[in-house]
């Protein structure tokens, strides 16, 4: 096999034949997952197929994270049904309220394997690309079919290769890098495509998650990072898992990150991106430090470092929703959490929380939010009259300190 991108390599290996961009492949799915808000639809698809048992309970994972704890009777009832399903099907990878966000737990618990295909009923399943897993999001019909058959169909994607060069300035994070890429390529710039990132050797394990998961905001099918030593220390990486030197890319993008300013996406589109300085007159009511994009230990520590010993701006709130129970425990043990609470933060249960606007911090009309999440569509976090800005944890911290969108290096 030669001239292959990472996506082509993985799909060739799992389908036992050489495939290239444009080919249709039916592939085995090593792990499929669904969440509380979608699970009933997935179960319904199995019913329509006349399928009573999942194909392989050890290749499935289930999460109660999207509206967790339940916010009303309808969500509580749905979660009860999901618990009963997990029990009846013998699915061991079941993570109930408080465990954390599905994608975070998939990585923490090593439920995904480099060089295989993993599918979630959630668009940010591209996150698994951070360890070299072909992770992609699908709807409930596709996921229901995988639960029943263990397989799915895929069109092998063309690849956009991104090479990062240079060392970012202090307070510039991978969130700024991916926002910069989205600013250039726009929200449909990667539609149907694979993203393949190179030049990440100096970036931490935690920070790579953001690049892979936010590839979804480009419309991409998958966001792959070629695994290096940082990944090999924690995951079994097959020796064939690299892109060929002569691989054919649809496009190559070089990005010098050494001169990059912190980037902020303004309402109501993720590609409405500005240098942070251009938005410094924007007053913020709520800062949301959460979501699968940026609520890991490193993110919480970044905020704590900036706000230590200080008080939150009057008239501004900080909602901290750790990505997982493990993150919350680690942040408790190393003192990060108490720093945030002393600063004036409110703490929510690990999970999606306010990111999807159904519970634990829903926004009201006219409210302005600075979020470390990934989407700022109208109505995403509650009222369609609320405004959402997206940026890094470092900018979130500086913003909570001053009450206005603030460049942390200007403090």
């Amino acid at each position, binding site marked *: 096999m030669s001239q292959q991108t990472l996506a082509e390599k993985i799909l060739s290996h799992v389908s036992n034949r050489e495939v290239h961009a444009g080919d249709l492949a*039916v592939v085995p799915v090593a792990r499929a997952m669904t969440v509380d808000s979608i699970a009933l*639809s997935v179960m319904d698809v199995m019913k329509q197929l006349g399928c009573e048992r999942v194909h392989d309970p050890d290749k499935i994972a289930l999460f109660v994270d999207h509206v967790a704890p339940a916010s009303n009777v309808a969500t509580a009832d749905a979660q009860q049904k999901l618990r009963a399903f997990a029990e009846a099907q013998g699915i061991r990878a079941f993570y109930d309220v408080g465990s954390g966000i599905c994608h975070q737990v998939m990585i923490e618990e090593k439920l995904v394997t480099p060089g295989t295909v993993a599918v979630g009923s959630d668009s940010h399943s591209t996150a698994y690309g951070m360890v070299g897993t072909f992770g992609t999001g699908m*709807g409930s*019909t596709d996921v229901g079919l995988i639960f029943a058959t263990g397989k799915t169909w895929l069109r092998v994607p063309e690849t956009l290769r991104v090479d990062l060069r240079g060392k970012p300035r202090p307070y510039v994070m991978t969130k700024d890098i991916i926002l910069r890429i989205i600013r250039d390529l726009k929200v449909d710039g990667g539609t149907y495509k694979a993203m393949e990132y190179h030049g990440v050797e100096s970036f931490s394990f935690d920070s790579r998650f953001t690049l892979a998961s936010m590839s979804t905001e480009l419309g991409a099918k998958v966001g792959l990072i070629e695994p290096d030593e940082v990944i090999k220390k924690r995951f079994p990486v097959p020796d064939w898992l690299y892109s060929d030197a002569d691989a054919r890319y649809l496009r190559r993008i070089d990005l010098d990150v050494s001169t990059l300013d912190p980037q902020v996406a303004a309402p109501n589109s993720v590609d409405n991106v500005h240098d942070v300085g251009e938005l410094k007159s924007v007053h913020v009511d709520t800062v949301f430090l959460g979501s699968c994009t940026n609520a890991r230990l490193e993110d919480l520590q970044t905020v704590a470092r900036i706000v230590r010993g200080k008080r939150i701006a009057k008239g501004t709130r900080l909602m901290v929703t750790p990505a997982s129970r493990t993150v919350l425990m680690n942040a408790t043990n190393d003192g990060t959490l108490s720093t945030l609470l002393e600063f004036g933060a409110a703490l929510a249960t690990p999970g999606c929380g306010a990111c999807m606007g159904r519970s634990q911090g829903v926004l009201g009309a006219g409210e302005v939010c600075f979020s470390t999440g990934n989407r700022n569509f109208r109505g995403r976090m509650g009222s369609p009259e609320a405004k959402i800005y997206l940026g890094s944890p470092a900018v979130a911290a500086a913003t909570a300190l001053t009450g206005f969108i603030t460049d942390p290096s200007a403090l």
Partner: protein
Amino acid sequence: MPRIWKFGDDIDTDQVVPGRYAPYMTGDPELQKYAFIENRPDFAKQVKTGDWIVAGKNFGCGSSREYAAQALRKSPIAGIIAKSYARIFFRNALNLGIPLYESDELNDRVQDGQELSFDAEHSSLTVDGKTYALKPMPGFVHQIIREGSIIDFVKKHGKFPGE
């Protein structure tokens, strides 16, 4: 005569059905009532059998929630013609058997509410005396639509299209 419902670029799944109206939140399976409830409140009440949605680029972007596609499947629309689709929406709509076509020019040439006639055999749409050729869909798309949905396909053939 069936009519055109015209939409712009980047219509996300929250504009098709806002998250607050998800069946998970309301327990209400009558999803078609909520199609475009905030974006085009007249849609659900007035859409008629055979009407087409004609949209710009990246239709259905945003989340993977399939109920956006389901709400359209349950509505009487005949299909969608967009400049392009978001990836997950494309799969979802196709899996449910909604005919999906692409056309670069149609959206810029037609008006909301214009009457149309669709020719399935030639993949073309006629509006106001002018006929527009639509990009042909790949073979597996036809296979799925012919059986009704991907679930019908897999039930009947015991495998995926192309397997």
